[in-house]
């Protein structure tokens, strides 16, 4: 089936529209069914994915606006494949764990729309198409945060929307410029990424474009100092909102770096490694500290995800296979882990209607399963070997170590600081005497919550021990990417830094 990607995009759309006719009380089942079907579809995509093939697969191309070179152009490779699967998975999990009561129907339909946008972003190879999905993804999220959020939800949602919107508009100008550059070199308009990959821009141009794209992605990631929308968004969003925001939407930014910034502007990317990575390191350390200072459980996770995204950016700008593959894998692991953590916070919030750490303490006694899963996720989040969290973090650091050992060591403090804030959360929440009487009656995880969480735990362990099925395709595509960058880089510095294969070593 060649047009599986189209199905993957539009099935949720159609389902969402049909969902309007499903009655309020049976909508949940409907939502789960649709999301599950979508997830299975994405699994099938993986099954029929040729893992030895590095390039784009399941390519579909359909001219939309030939005059202007805009086409409906889809395809996945090892880099995007798993993010797509994660997107569908997290949507499914999110819907399963859904705990909102009032107008559930709108919520589920909105989630399906969001899924369309998410899948679309990661499979579209036409830049305008990408941009369309990219922008459109804001709308359902705005509604989710704004309609089911906390007290400051309006502020949070609008801030989220406008902040990201502003960034991406600058990126749009950049996109249009690249298109024009392509036009003036080849004489035809094209927005298809694969065409653009062939385009070699002079450094003087690359440097501006790099920053134009950077702004768009950096706000989405979010990178310091553009990050302040995130704590509000997470703090106010309902659980499912936070889950999807952390798991998938943030990845759009880091994915953008891998998919656009690096291959389109290799020289500029190399030239600006230092500033970018210094920002990344500030993200890692500074937000880790901020996370440690938080009084609200959810805010800790929110800031921690900024810190982890820092690692991802670091790995991306390592400019070698180890680093980039690592950062891509880290995207997945962060998606799964932070998603799970947000689910867990949501679970406790549903019971106590507070997320303040001071309210808890010693609840490991009353909620052993909850505590167990939380600790597992904590360990994954601090990058314990044999959990999913280790591999990405390790590879990212390993990769960047080649570029700058010193900066890597500084960034590496994340493994310490991460432990500091996560363990202090665990201690404050689960350990110590059970003082607060309200906590004594707490129920342990319900079947619903367990069905949402157990798969994630399974994935965390499975990919921690046997990452090969995922890491393999990522590795192939990343190799291809790095080779491309190396081939089209023009400045000697880039030639030197972009490392296709290690030059030293015994088994070369």
């Amino acid at each position, binding site marked *: 089936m060649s047009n599986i990607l189209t199905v993957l995009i539009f099935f949720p759309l159609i389902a969402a529209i049909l969902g309007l006719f499903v009655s309020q009380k049976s909508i949940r089942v409907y939502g789960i069914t649709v999301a599950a079907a979508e997830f299975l579809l994405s699994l099938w995509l993986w099954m029929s994915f040729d893992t030895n093939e590095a390039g784009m697969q399941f390519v579909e191309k359909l001219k*939309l*606006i*030939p*005059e*202007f070179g805009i086409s409906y152009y889809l395809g996945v490779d090892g880099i995007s494949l798993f993010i797509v699967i994660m997107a569908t998975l997290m949507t499914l999990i999110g819907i399963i764990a859904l705990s909102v009561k009032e107008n559930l129907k*709108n919520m589920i339909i909105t989630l399906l729309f969001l899924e369309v946008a998410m899948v679309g972003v990661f499979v579209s190879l036409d830049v*305008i198409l990408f*941009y*369309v999905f990219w*922008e*459109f993804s*804001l*709308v359902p999220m*705005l*509604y989710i945060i*704004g*309609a089911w959020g906390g007290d400051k*939800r*309006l502020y949070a*949602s*609008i801030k989220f*929307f*406008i902040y990201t*919107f*502003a960034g991406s*508009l*600058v990126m*749009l*100008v950049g996109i*249009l*410029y690249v*298109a*024009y550059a392509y*036009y003036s070199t080849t004489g035809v308009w094209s927005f298809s990424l694969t065409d653009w990959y062939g385009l070699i821009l002079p450094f003087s141009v690359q440097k*501006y474009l790099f920053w134009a794209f950077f702004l768009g992605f950096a706000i989405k990631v979010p990178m310091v100092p553009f990050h302040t929308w995130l704590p509000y968004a997470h703090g106010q969003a309902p659980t499912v909102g936070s889950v999807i925001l952390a798991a998938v939407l943030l990845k759009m930014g880091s994915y953008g770096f891998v998919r656009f910034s690096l291959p389109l502007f290799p020289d500029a990317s190399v030239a600006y490694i230092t500033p970018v990575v210094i920002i990344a390191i500030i993200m890692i350390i500074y937000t880790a500290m901020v996370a440690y200072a938080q009084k609200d459980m959810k805010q800790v996770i929110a800031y921690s995800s900024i810190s982890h995204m820092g690692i991802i950016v670091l790995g991306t700008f390592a400019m070698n296979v180890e680093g980039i593959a690592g950062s891509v894998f880290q995207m997945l692991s962060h998606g799964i882990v932070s998603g799970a953590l947000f689910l867990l916070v949501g679970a406790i919030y549903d019971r106590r209607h507070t997320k303040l750490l001071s309210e808890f303490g010693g609840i490991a006694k009353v909620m052993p399963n909850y505590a167990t899963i939380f600790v597992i996720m904590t360990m994954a989040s601090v990058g314990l070997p044999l959990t999913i969290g280790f591999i990405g973090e390790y590879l990212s650091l390993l990769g960047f170590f080649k570029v700058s050992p010193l900066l890597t060591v500084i960034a590496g403090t994340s493994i310490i600081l991460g432990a500091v804030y996560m363990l202090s959360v665990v201690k404050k929440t689960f350990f110590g005497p059970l003082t607060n009487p309200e906590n004594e009656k707490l129920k342990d995880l319900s079947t619903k919550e367990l069905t949402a969480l157990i798969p994630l735990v399974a994935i965390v362990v499975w990919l921690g021990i046997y990452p090969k099925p995922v890491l393999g395709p990522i590795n192939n595509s990343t190799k291809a990417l790095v080779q491309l960058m190396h081939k089209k880089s023009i400045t000697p510095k880039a030639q030197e830094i972009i490392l296709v294969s290690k030059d030293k070593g015994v088994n070369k």
Partner: protein
Amino acid sequence: MIQLPDFSSLNLITMSPMFVILLGALTILCIDLVKPNLDKTLYVVLTMLTLFIALGVTLSLNINERGLFDTILIDGVSVLGQTLIIAGSMLFIPLALTKRRFHDFSYPEFFSLFLFMVFGFQFMAASDNLILIFVGLETGSLALYTLIAMHNTKLAHEAAIKYFTMGAMAAGFFTMGAAIIYATTGSVEMYAIAKVLQDRMGEAGILIPIIGGALFMIVAIGFKVSLIPFHMWTPDTYEGASAPMAGYMSIVPKVAMMVVAIRLFGIYMELNIDIIKITIIVLAIITTTLANMMALVQKDVKRMLAYSSISHAGFVLVAIALDTTKGYSSIFLYYGLFMFTNLGAFTMLWISRHKYNVHHDRFHHPYSKFAGMIKIAPISAVIMAVFMLSLAGVPPFSLFWGKLYVLSAIVDSGYYGVAIIMALNSAIAVYYYLKLIVYMFLKEPDESRKNVVYANRAFSLELVIGIAAFVTITSIFYIEPLMSFITDLVGASGY
């Protein structure tokens, strides 16, 4: 002494669309004369019919002909202009059939006046002769003033008088500009003007009168397309006028004037006099930015839309200064898309319009009125949201493509700074559009029955909204043919 030209150069066929309209107008008057106080539906349908025929005729015109002693020029631009004008009018007319009786529509004169106005604007679009443009402009405008006043509320009168007075002054500027141009070139025919200027460019000090004339013209044009600081009438007039009339004003007169601007400034661009280029761009930037800022702080949706249409005008105006086919085409594309979305939005206001102010002592459409609309009327809330998102330029809705083309045109001409300013402007703009969405979706309806009710609901209105919504949502599928159609016509007329 000049000798009379032969009648072959009369070539009345070129004026056929205008004649159709004129005929329609007169018919309506006559019918009323013969048999007074017939129901308005008749007139609506008649007007509709007239417009249909006119549209057909317009599209069947063959390009690049001159008529009426070479004063009428039917080139691609004028065809496009007329098409937009007529199409806009066709979207407007059904809005007269409302549930509530607004007695401006109950006069048959209203419709004939309306047609006269269309006639006037068509003249503007179809002529490259300053005299005819002036006449067309005044015909259209005077009719328009009257139509506004016919809404017959205190605010409507105030709106009309403001518009009228400023219009009169603008007319003064227009004529003065024309006089200066005439003095420098000795002609009122644009092609002639262009030729003469071409020859005289070399002369010392010729720049002063050229620019002087241009500046006066910019004021006159800027008034009509509502550039800051000539925009002052816009918010007030839109507020005073009935919602559909406001929506109408935000498109049709502007399109007519844009065509004139293209013709007139086209000359200067040809001569590439950068000063005028720069002036226009600066005006455009100021217009977009300030309008957005002022729109932020509005309490009334209609007034907000007024400011937003100002900012959109500014956004489009940049394209004129580029002097590229893509630029000019994108203007028409933009207005074509803007017409549906914006009229749709105004119609949403119209459909929810009470006869008397129940929501606010001054405003008919305060934001608070739409609070919690998703709970009261989900479908129309969604539609309104779509219009808002489209205006904000959120893909995949129609105006995004307009924005895309304009920005792309700007980038192609190398004005990256301008492009980024404009882009960031839409980030400001998105705030006030979101504000409405927030009210509709994220706020609770207030219990004191102050929130939106379809006082004015009628099939025709729903139809218009439906069309508008459909066009807005499905844009992706017709952008290609539409754009190539526009580009061909614009290219044909040598821009």
